[in-house]
């Protein structure tokens, strides 16, 4: 089975947002980066499919040299190969998807796995975009995946439950927490990852469809009130929720 996993390199979850001088982007000074958390579930699922069906798992990331870090992590977990679609310009999701889809086209995967969303721009678009560009079905926010006889059965999270979806392969699946428990890279994995080559390809440029006109931080909340230190405060709390906040 040929498996592609898309991985993104994003500011870690501790990041304090500071807007840079251009007023449109994150100031990267002092920011640590990580493999986007949902992509870890995608990598893990890819590795499990390989263990079951044999084949190869290739991790792909589109971005500047720094994205090699995300690829190294994927390699350390056990992916066979890393591919950097090298472009350090800022792309919108459509343009990222186009680069990834172009690569996927040549690779002819049976399954493409990616995260349900990157935790930088929280777009939650890539899976669906790439699938449509390639004319494949897609299932998003998946917490359970089974593959048999050229068909996949997946459970995806929806409001108030799960949908069981059947789709034909090849297909794109976007991973949600709960899909699996990602493995920690072994020491050997980490050492091997250093030796595995990362192929670099320059993707074709794509016109953006989205223009960022500004970035700001949300207005800080007005300081709240401590209304008590024990159960005797509940009467006052209920009164405030009803009369002042008007939420009950």
């Amino acid at each position, binding site marked *: 089975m040929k498996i592609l996993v898309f991985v993104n390199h994003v500011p870690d979850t501790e990041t304090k947002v500071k807007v840079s001088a251009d007023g449109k982007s994150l100031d990267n000074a002092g920011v640590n980066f990580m493999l986007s958390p949902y992509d870890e579930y995608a990598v893990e699922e890819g590795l499990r499919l390989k263990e079951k069906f044999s084949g190869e798992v290739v991790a792909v990331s589109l971005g500047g040299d720094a994205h090699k870090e995300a690829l190294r992590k994927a390699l350390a977990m056990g992916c066979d190969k890393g591919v950097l679609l090298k472009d350090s310009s800022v792309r919108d999701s459509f343009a990222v998807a186009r680069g990834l889809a172009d690569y996927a086209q040549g690779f002819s995967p049976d399954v493409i796995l990616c995260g349900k969303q990157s935790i930088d721009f929280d777009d939650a678009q890539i899976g669906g975009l790439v699938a449509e560009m390639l004319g494949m*079905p897609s299932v998003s926010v998946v917490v359970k995946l089974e593959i048999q006889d050229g068909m996949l059965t997946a459970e995806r999270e929806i409001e108030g439950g799960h949908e069981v979806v059947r789709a034909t392969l090849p297909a794109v699946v976007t991973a949600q927490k709960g899909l699996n428990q990602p493995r920690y890279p072994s020491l050997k994995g980490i050492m091997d990852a250093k030796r595995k080559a990362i192929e670099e390809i320059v993707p074709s440029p794509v016109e953006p469809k989205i223009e*960022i*006109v500004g970035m700001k931080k949300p207005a800080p909340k007005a300081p709240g009130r401590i209304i008590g230190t024990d159960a005797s405060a509940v009467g006052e709390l209920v009164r405030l929720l009803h009369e002042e906040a008007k*939420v009950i």
Partner: protein
Amino acid sequence: MKILAFAEQRDSRLKKTSYEVVRTAKMIGDQLSAECAALLVGDGVSAIAAELGEYGVSRVIVVEDARLGRYSTTAYAKIVADIMRQENADILFLPASALGKDLSPRVSVKLEAGLATDCVALRVDQGDIVATRPVYAGKGLVDVRVKSPIKIFSLRPNVFPAGSPSPQRCVAEKKNIALADGDFGSTVTEIKSSKGKKDVAEADIIVSGGRGLRGPENFAMIEELASALNGAVGASRAVVDAGWRPHSEQVGQTGKTVAPSLYIAVGISGAVQHLAGMSSSKIIVAINKDKDAPIFSVADYGIVGDAFEIIPALTKELRTFKEQ
């Protein structure tokens, strides 16, 4: 100019977020002097079309097919794109729900349309829409413009006002989209609903518990408080990772982003990753025995004290309040 508002339904019941989307489309439409219509897709859904009229549209396009009773990403995408083309529509609004988030990227490719997902505010500036959307789990906000001729915006549920319904004349217009078997590349075969349980993503009131509750058995107290408020139970990642609660309840950067009118955090410290998922809630109440817990920095009301004492008392107080 023409705007279409995609209205989501399940089992022929419109979702609340559909009213929000329709109302917003109408409001933006008025500012742009654009024509506005709703699009309803499903099986036997024409009966509910008129309901959309009550939120401001005078025309509802209905696409019905026995195979559309359950969602199919590929078939729905084809229908929405085909109708957009037939209508010569310029703008599509849809909810950033599980379905909307799944559907919108595919329509975006079919129409070569830029897509702004999960918008929390929209404004019209020089005849163009500027959308505000959260980034970095709500720690930042970006304003974006869509530059392609056709533009798609998905709207975060619970954020845009639906307004109150008012009866008005509304025509439902059935349209036929020919669907081949090949259009159903994926199909929903079953829906497993968590019966009777409210989902944090849709709830108007959420009571979340964290590690301060000491064990899964103590969530009974959280469930009771939630039920007294007719709300949903949420959880911090610490308790989800410990296996006390299902991950579908996790609120935060790697869980769900929620914006209910009332969020009560019990025994949750308020780590940045948790705050990221809930700090845009309208009213936040924190109950924590540590007065320095960061959760208090976003709380409107706080009680510094022992949850084991406060929660049962609060539940009781609320029950008495509701009876009056």
